[in-house]
């Protein structure tokens, strides 16, 4: 029989049995063996794994001292040497979910396979699914404790033994922002027509890919007087100085660059390159103003339609960009724009 997996379990103080007011502010502690729901977890592991220790921490304490808790837990992992780390399940408890997510992420970074569980609407789910963590979908409350632990245990065993893992639907985890290519034996064209026919007939069908929903951004108020406004150009079209001095990649960019256009009436062909790998750059190379319309905006500046054009353009490559990277890049550029008093942005996109 294969080795018994060493499991370390993380619980918040409430599930660990510390009650009342003390509960939220309990610092990190370590207990040998299983505690509270950990005993159910051990049953679910059915001899394939053993809970060698339980780490417990109050959710309020974690929220206040996240980095310190992470350090403590990392130190415990060093001593305990788990084969698998299991956190929660947190159900809908937000701070608990965030704690489970963070600790699983830290475990994965140390190459310790980690599994947690929470309700899909737990804020920990939104934050940590894009980090590709394995989060078992649970019910909203501890009513769902047993099925949650059973799925978490099953997944933990597979991960601990490096066994193949099924789809999110099969294993019961929340989609973790990972796409796998699978050969179905049927060409996509046929699958697409079959799916369209089902949809047309009102029959049930399952989409192979689900469309992500995006957070709603409240619109900024409009410019009241463009003739006084400082306007900036920001683009994801990957228009860069010839030679690509900042080495923007053709795809999956994780950084951005800015280029000085002060004193230029237009972008001059030959001085710029278009490195975005998702579009044919012939037209852009012949006349870069077709992508970043510096010439027309300068004319608006001269005519007094806009107050001033910012002297720098901000550039990244939006080809196959990860949402998280693009969010960060957007936030960094936005911070620069705010610092420089920019009041409006024109954003050419390809």
């Amino acid at each position: 029989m294969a080795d018994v997996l060493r499991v370390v379990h993380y619980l918040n103080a409430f599930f660990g049995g510390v009650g009342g007011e003390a509960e939220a502010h309990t610092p990190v502690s370590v207990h040998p063996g299983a505690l509270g729901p950990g005993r159910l977890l051990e049953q679910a592991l059915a001899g394939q794994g053993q809970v060698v220790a339980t780490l417990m921490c109050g959710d309020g304490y974690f929220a206040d001292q996240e980095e310190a808790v992470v350090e403590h837990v990392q130190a415990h992992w060093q001593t305990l040497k788990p084969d698998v780390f299991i956190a929660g399940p947190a159900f809908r408890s937000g701070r608990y979910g965030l704690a489970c997510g963070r600790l699983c992420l830290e475990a994965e970074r140390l190459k310790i396979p980690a599994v947690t569980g929470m309700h899909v609407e737990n804020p920990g789910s939104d934050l940590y699914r894009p980090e590709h963590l394995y989060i078992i979908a649970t019910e909203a409350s501890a009513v769902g404790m047993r099925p949650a632990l059973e799925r978490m245990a099953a997944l933990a065993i597979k991960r601990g033994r490096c066994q193949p893992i099924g789809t999110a639907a099969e294993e019961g985890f929340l989609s973790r922002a990972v796409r796998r290519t699978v050969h179905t034996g049927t060409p996509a064209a046929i699958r697409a027509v079959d799916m369209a026919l089902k949809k047309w007939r009102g029959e049930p069908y399952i989409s192979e890919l689900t469309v992500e929903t995006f957070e709603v951004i409240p619109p900024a108020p409009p410019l009241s007087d463009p003739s006084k406004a400082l306007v900036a150009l920001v683009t994801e079209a990957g228009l860069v100085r010839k030679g690509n001095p900042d080495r923007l990649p053709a795809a999956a960019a994780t950084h951005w660059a800015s280029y000085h256009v002060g004193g230029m009436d237009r972008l001059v062909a030959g001085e710029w390159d278009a490195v975005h790998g998702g579009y044919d750059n012939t037209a852009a190379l012949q006349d870069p103003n077709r992508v970043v319309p510096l010439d027309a905006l300068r004319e608006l500046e001269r005519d007094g339609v806009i107050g001033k054009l910012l002297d720098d353009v901000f550039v990244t490559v939006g080809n196959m960009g990860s949402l998280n990277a693009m969010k960060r890049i957007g936030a960094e550029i936005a911070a620069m724009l705010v610092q420089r008093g920019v009041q409006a942005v024109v954003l050419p996109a390809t």
Partner: protein
Amino acid sequence: MGIPTVLATCLYTVATRVGANRIVRGGRFHHPFGAPEKPQAEEYVWRRKFVEQTMHALCTPVQQPTVFDVEDAVLV
């Protein structure tokens, strides 16, 4: 309080789904502000009109993703 931003693209359906609030559509995706099929002078006139439309979008209050057209835009 955000900075009003107008996205200029021909892929306006993607833009609305992602949640960009001010979208001006025109051109083709490999040259949003270009119309290379036109002679150069005419293309510039078109680009100027497109840019004016982006300014119009920036000056217009919107409640949700809103697409502004440029006259005789060609959709890909």
